[in-house]
């Protein structure tokens, strides 16, 4: 192997080298390791084939349809490949649905983010409903909900508060009983959701309106589960406060970082 060739600097045998198929194929396999992303059917298969990944090693898990990369930072971490955001799953509602329940939420990310665009079949005086969530069924949620309501040119701020309740607010949903095509959109963050030392909380922002004609409601707030609940968030129930999601509503779950 006296020369190299190409961008990968592959070693090329000289004509005077003794033929050695084993050495030659091993050399090619070693070189290919840096250029081929292997596929594994399970975590066990990946661990067996590459038990001590080196910095930059990549692989794809066919059981998860997800790529991974080993980074030699913070003592060595395996992170979802390619970016710091990863799609987990999405519910596109096709029929009236009381609630969406995400289970077996992977614990491999650092933070969770939920996006929701929704309408529901509630009939409230305000024309809109609260978006709610719950990651354990104990009455250990407390929240502050700050709402800026604008009807025409007049705006008012209203603060709502509850504690020791079983469900928390995480956004707003437009009521489908109105004849206009309004919608409620919300973004909800769950920082450090997989930790088990501290209690878990969320922050959110939401907006709902009748598509800008007269009524606009902008909401923001924070929720904290009490210190008694330090279990990692592995399931998440998302639902309108008093009604059910109608067809077309979307609830999307993403993982962030590692």
């Amino acid at each position: 192997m006296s020369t190299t060739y190409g961008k990968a600097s592959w070693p090329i045998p000289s004509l005077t080298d003794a033929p050695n198929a084993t050495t030659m194929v091993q050399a090619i396999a070693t070189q290919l390791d840096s250029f081929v992303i292997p596929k594994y059917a399970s975590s066990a298969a990946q661990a067996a084939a590459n038990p001590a990944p080196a910095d930059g090693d990549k692989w794809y898990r066919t059981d998860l349809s997800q790529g991974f990369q080993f980074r030699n930072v913070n003592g060595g971490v395996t992170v979802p490949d390619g970016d710091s955001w990863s799609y987990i799953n999405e519910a596109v509602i096709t029929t009236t649905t009381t609630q969406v329940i995400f289970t077996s939420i992977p614990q491999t990310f650092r933070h969770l983010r939920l996006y929701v665009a929704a309408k529901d079949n509630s009939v409230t005086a305000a024309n809109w409903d609260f978006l709610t969530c719950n990651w354990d069924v104990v009455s250990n949620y407390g929240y502050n909900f700050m709402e800026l309501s604008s009807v025409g040119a007049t705006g008012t701020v209203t603060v709502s508060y509850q504690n020791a309740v079983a469900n928390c607010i995480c956004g707003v949903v437009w009521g489908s009983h109105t004849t206009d095509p309004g919608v409620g959109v919300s973004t909800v963050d769950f920082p450090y959701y997989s930790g088990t030392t501290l209690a878990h909380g969320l922050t959110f922002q939401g907006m709902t309106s009748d598509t800008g004609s007269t009524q606009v409601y902008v909401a923001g707030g924070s929720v904290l589960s009490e210190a008694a609940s330090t279990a990692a968030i592995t399931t998440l129930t998302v639902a309108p406060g008093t009604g059910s999601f109608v067809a077309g509503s979307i609830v999307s779950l993403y993982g962030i970082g590692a």
Partner: protein
Amino acid sequence: MTMQEQVLHVDCASGEQTYRAPTDAEAEQIAARRAQFAKLHGERASKAEAKAALLARLETDYPGVSELF
């Protein structure tokens, strides 16, 4: 709770999505949630009504003051 109630279960491990009827425990949680937020809607509406009434009274004595709120 009506017979038409259904929930969408999204299993993030398998990717499967299944519409099904709520379990008994889920049905209880749904009822509790609706009671909790119906109460909050009521409190919110009362607060808004009281605020509007107060502003109306202020407006009588101080015309234009409601523009500040």
